[in-house]
């Protein structure tokens, strides 16, 4: 039914001559360098200059360069038009009039065509023979963009939008949704539309875009100003006298009769901007990867804002920041980082999660970069619960340990003060029954420190008090010697003796004053503490601690790295944005210039149209003049 009459365009870049290498400048465009002659140029060095495409100085990569799927969506090299033409050429000539065939076919080709599929982002000077200023600037990245729009009869809000590269998608302005794959419910109508299109072509009638019947909205003047008013939306595409009429249900097949001019038709219609398709990334073909979505959304976002106000300084970066989260952090690292945050800020593990969120500002949780390593509230909650459980257990253990040594020490101190050989245990107990140390406090109820133990200690103490001083002193010395150097050395003080001494009955036998003097003297005669890590058990503990610390440092480094990358990405975005904006302004200026119609306006238009047939570089040269 349809013949592919597309003539091979001169788009294929010839291979570089020997000695030349291709590089990418920091600004994003490609240049060529000859190591031998130490010469570098933006112009692609070729054997014959004629076949070079109009954008010879453009950043178009060689055809072999294709966007890397893993790379950052916005850093990905944009598709180059000549490349997509190549693809169009390589499309086998199957009959794409059948939508099912076409869609299945598209599914295969979508992967290759993706990166530009949503991208009507740039002002798309892709095939445009730029003027002088444009050649000085880095060339804009070519992006697909809507070109003409046809109302689908019978399916009222729907439009069929054709893009510059001959692809098309269904667009619903009411729901503000667009789909590359034609939805089932409007498919029959679209088929109808295509039949009509073919019929018209055969009959030599003007194409659908020019028929007022297919323009459900009033035609507006092709004024940039109006195009920018986002709400006003629908521009008639009536002067779209181009050649994608017969391309079938998806964008692959380009069948045109005027072949050569289809990449150059923009200069005639410089104002083709339709503020449509703001969100179609989401509904794209399933083969799209996340990166592509992100890139598309970012582009849409940028476009949308540009439509509102070109020089709007408060450009919304939010959407683009989201693109930046390629995480060098693993999931476990992220969880551990969040736990570190909780521990560091001394969050009460007994508190509910809600409190953490409610008081996030006060406690500084929100301002900590570690808060964002986990991306969802659910994940945070999970980690919080886990952390709080463990923290509470650790707290309990620590408390239990503390209590273990506790009850004996105050009791012994009390004995030293109040015990006397004149009192029997029963009398002593009765006399001091109201003292705290004599009671089984509820805090210690689980300990085996009861009255029996107290009685035992009391009796022993009383018996020892009857012993001679020298005996007591030698006993105390023995006790002190039994304590390892690690715990007792010349740096310890009498006020903070290890619990091993404090809980021993020999410690309280001597009178407090003589005892303290004796211990003081003993401590001064000791050697300094051994270097940390001599003890076997301690060493093991140190090992564990050190490992934990190391892990933590690693995590934090990863976080820093991530922050750095995010910052870098942000800066890059900003730069790119500024550049895009400048370009847009440039475009506008150009538009305005074009809009100024002098007396021979039509003539010059015609003249330009005539020249589109000649190879592009020449035209470019003319324009430059």
């Amino acid at each position, binding site marked *: 039914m349809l013949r592919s009459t597309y003539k091979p365009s001169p788009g294929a870049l010839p291979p570089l001559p020997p000695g030349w290498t291709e590089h990418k400048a920091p600004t994003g465009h490609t240049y060529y360098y000859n190591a031998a002659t130490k010469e570098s140029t933006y112009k692609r060095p070729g054997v014959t200059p004629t076949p070079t495409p109009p954008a010879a100085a453009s950043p178009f990569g060689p055809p072999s360069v294709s966007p890397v799927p893993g790379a950052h969506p916005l850093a990905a090299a944009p598709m180059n038009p000549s490349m997509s033409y190549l693809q169009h050429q390589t499309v086998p000539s199957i009959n794409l009039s059948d939508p099912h065939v076409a869609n299945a076919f598209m599914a295969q080709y979508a992967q290759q065509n993706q990166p530009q599929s949503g991208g009507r982002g740039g002002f798309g000077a892709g095939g445009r023979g730029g003027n002088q200023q444009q050649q000085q600037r880095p060339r804009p990245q070519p992006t697909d963009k809507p070109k003409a729009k046809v109302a689908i009869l019978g399916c009222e809000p729907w439009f069929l939008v054709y893009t510059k590269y001959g692809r098309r998608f269904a667009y619903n302005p009411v729901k503000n949704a667009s789909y590359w794959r034609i939805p089932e419910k409007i498919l029959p109508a679209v088929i109808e539309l295509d039949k009509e299109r073919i019929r018209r072509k055969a009959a030599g009638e003007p194409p659908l875009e020019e028929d007022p019947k297919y323009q459900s909205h009033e035609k507006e003047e092709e004024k940039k100003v109006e195009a920018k008013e986002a709400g006003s939306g629908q521009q008639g595409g009536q002067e779209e006298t181009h050649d994608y009429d017969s391309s079938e249900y998806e964008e692959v097949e380009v069948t045109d009769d005027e072949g050569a001019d289809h990449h150059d038709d923009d200069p005639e219609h410089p104002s083709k901007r339709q503020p449509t398709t703001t969100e179609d990334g989401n509904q794209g073909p399933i083969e799209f990867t996340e990166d592509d979505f992100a890139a598309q959304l970012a582009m849409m976002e940028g476009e949308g804002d540009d439509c509102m106000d070109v020089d709007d300084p408060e450009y919304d970066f939010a959407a683009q920041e989201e693109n930046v989260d390629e995480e060098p952090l693993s999931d476990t690292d992220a969880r551990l980082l969040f736990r570190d945050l909780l521990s560091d800020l001394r969050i*009460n*593990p*007994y*508190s*509910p999660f*809600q*409190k953490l969120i409610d008081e996030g500002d006060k406690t500084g949780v929100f301002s900590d970069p570690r808060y964002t390593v986990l991306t969802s509230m659910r994940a945070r909650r999970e980690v919080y*619960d886990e952390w*709080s*459980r463990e923290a*509470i*257990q650790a707290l*309990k253990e620590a408390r239990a340990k503390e209590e273990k040594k506790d009850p004996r020490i105050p009791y012994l101190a009390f004995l030293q003060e109040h015990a006397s050989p004149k009192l029997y245990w029963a009398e002593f107990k009765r006399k001091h029954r109201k003292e705290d140390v004599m009671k089984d406090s*509820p*805090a210690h109820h689980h300990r085996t420190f009861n009255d029996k133990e107290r009685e035992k200690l009391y009796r022993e103490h009383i018996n020892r008090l009857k012993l001679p001083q020298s005996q007591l002193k030698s006993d105390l010395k023995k006790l002190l010697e039994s304590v390892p150097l690690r715990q007792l050395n010349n740096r310890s003080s009498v006020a903070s003796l290890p619990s091993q001494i404090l809980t021993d009955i020999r410690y309280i036998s001597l009178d407090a004053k003589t005892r303290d003097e004796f211990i003081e003297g003993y401590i001064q005669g000791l050697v300094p503490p051994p270097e940390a890590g001599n003890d076997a058990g301690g060493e093991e503990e140190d090992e564990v601690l050190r490992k934990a610390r190391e892990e933590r440092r690693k995590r934090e480094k990863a976080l820093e790295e991530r922050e750095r990358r995010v910052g870098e990405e942000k800066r890059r975005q900003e730069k790119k944005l500024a550049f895009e904006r400048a370009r847009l302004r440039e475009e506008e200026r150009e538009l305005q210039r074009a809009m100024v119609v002098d007396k021979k306006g039509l003539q010059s238009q015609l003249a330009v149209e005539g020249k589109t047939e000649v190879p592009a570089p020449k035209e470019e040269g003319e324009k430059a003049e």
Partner: protein
Amino acid sequence: MPAIRPASKRKPPPEGFADIEEDLLIFANKMKDAQNTPTDNIPKHQAKWPIFQISHQRSRYIYELYYEKEAISKQLYEWLLKNGYADAMLIAKWKKNGYEKLCCLRCIQTKETNFNSTCICRVPKAELKEGQDVQCVSCGCRGCATGD
């Protein structure tokens, strides 16, 4: 009427209460605020929503401390229930299959509804119409089915 004992003679709460006292106080203050907020300008059925919600949160807090984090002792847990810090009946439901997230007891009280059915918030999200945003009449719950 039981005698009101002075604070000094009152039996102290079980061990571990000090750990959660502060958070319980926050809940108590929230509850007081909710009780004192004027309800003139809101629909009548919504007047008690915040009360239900705070009560739910507090019960959930204690439930999690005892059953999931094992942070408080059995004595303390029982003391808390006895002293009205948590709703024992609601917690009893949470232990049952299919009621793990139940918002309030009124929402499963089928006898109180016209068609002898549970509240809309008990319906799993998957079975609702797509995009349907429910908020139940009795406590303002947005969905407490277990599978959600």
